[in-house]
């Protein structure tokens, strides 16, 4: 499995509030990593640094190029609130080659519809090298959740490297191959692939670290 993303010793602070401190993370092709953490633990900050949208104060982020030498292709979705509300859903979808019959502005759609639109656009076309998803199951109905889970599994099988942050442990468990938890600014591995029963162990690890 080729290394696709490496976050090495990253530190990020907003004024005096240190969000990430010596965070290390590697993402390889064909694996989906579940990112856990309490609210405010820094999951979104880590995602945005991994997407190249933010710069770490210290440490580095590497996106090793593919075999051909071409730069890695990355897709990132930060949630339905990041979609521009004044643009019609149809036109937004058309930007990415996706067909949508919904003509209303994105801001007038329900939360679930916005989330679905954002995800359908993101997960359209051929799988990319790296996929970064921040709370992707939020607002989705059961059929939308199933579609997302199935699609993420397909992309992982096709070789995409995924980092998925979510509080929905059941959904994460159904997609991810391993899990890390953001705790005190560091990425701590919590459950290995082979450990069973995995969902219970993830829950226990989360509660042990967050509920203390």
């Amino acid at each position, binding site marked *: 499995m080729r290394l696709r993303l490496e976050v090495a010793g990253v530190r990020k602070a907003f004024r005096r509030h240190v969000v990430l401190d010596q965070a290390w993370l590697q993402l390889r092709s064909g694996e989906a990593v579940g990112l856990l953490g309490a609210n405010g633990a820094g999951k979104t900050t880590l995602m945005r640094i991994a*997407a190249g*949208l933010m710069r770490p104060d210290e440490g580095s982020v590497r996106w090793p190029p593919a075999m051909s030498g071409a730069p*890695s292709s990355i897709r*990132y979705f930060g*949630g339905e609130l990041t979609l*521009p509300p004044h*643009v019609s859903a149809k036109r937004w979808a*058309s*930007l990415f080659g996706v067909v949508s019959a919904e003509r209303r502005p994105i801001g007038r759609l329900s939360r679930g519809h916005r989330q679905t639109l954002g995800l359908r656009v993101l997960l359209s076309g051929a799988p990319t090298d790296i996929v970064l998803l921040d709370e992707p199951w939020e607002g989705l109905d059961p059929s939308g959740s199933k579609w997302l889970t199935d699609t993420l599994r397909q992309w992982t099988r096709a070789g995409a490297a995924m980092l998925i942050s979510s509080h929905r442990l059941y959904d994460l468990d159904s997609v991810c191959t391993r899990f890390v938890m953001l705790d005190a600014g560091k990425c701590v591995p919590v459950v290995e692939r082979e450990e069973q029963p995995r969902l219970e162990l993830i829950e226990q690890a989360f509660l042990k670290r967050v509920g203390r």
Partner: protein
Amino acid sequence: MVKFFLIVRQTPSYGLAVLSAVTVLGMLTVALNPAELDSALGMLLFVQMVLASSGFAAAARRGHFDPLLIHGSRRSAVLFVQWCASVAPGALAWGAVAGFAYAYSSPAAWSALAGSRAVAFLIVSIVAWSAGFALPRGAGGGLWMALLLVLLLRRVDLLASAAAPDPIAMVVTTMRAAGAVVVCPFLLLGTHVPIGLPALAASVGAVVVVLCATIRMGSRLDVYLVERL
């Protein structure tokens, strides 16, 4: 990227409505009296001050430009295209009014298309965008208008010049005139204040530097997420 900004418009609908109304009003003014072109251009400059101030950082930090700013993109190109998208509606309106004035043989029409009045439009388009880069939409233009109002109320003479004809005084006067024009581009409308070519060139140079500096700063922008409540 261009397609992105054609779809994700940087000018809100109400802004386009105001711009359209001012454009029609400007054309009517010129049709009634071609010598009144500067009144129409002045109105357009005020509207452009607000429209060009599109607040790049605020929109970026809501995640609206995430697909463009992600790793691997050329941020300086994104910023330049966003500037073009922010000023384009105003530029079209300006061109329409100036072209209309040209058809009506307005004496100032050529200046509005390619002379000092066009420089006034360029200055507004760059300074308003740069001033509003990290502010909410329209705020940069609003603050600029407030500054002009303060200067007006205090009766500050931006063009007060040194009378001595020595070269140093001339350079100082030129730089001062260039600065005055950048702060108040409305000085380039009308015929009452002579602004020399060197001062015009200096003012254009200064705003181009401002544009490049803002793009450079923007390409290092930390695009953290500020969620709407």
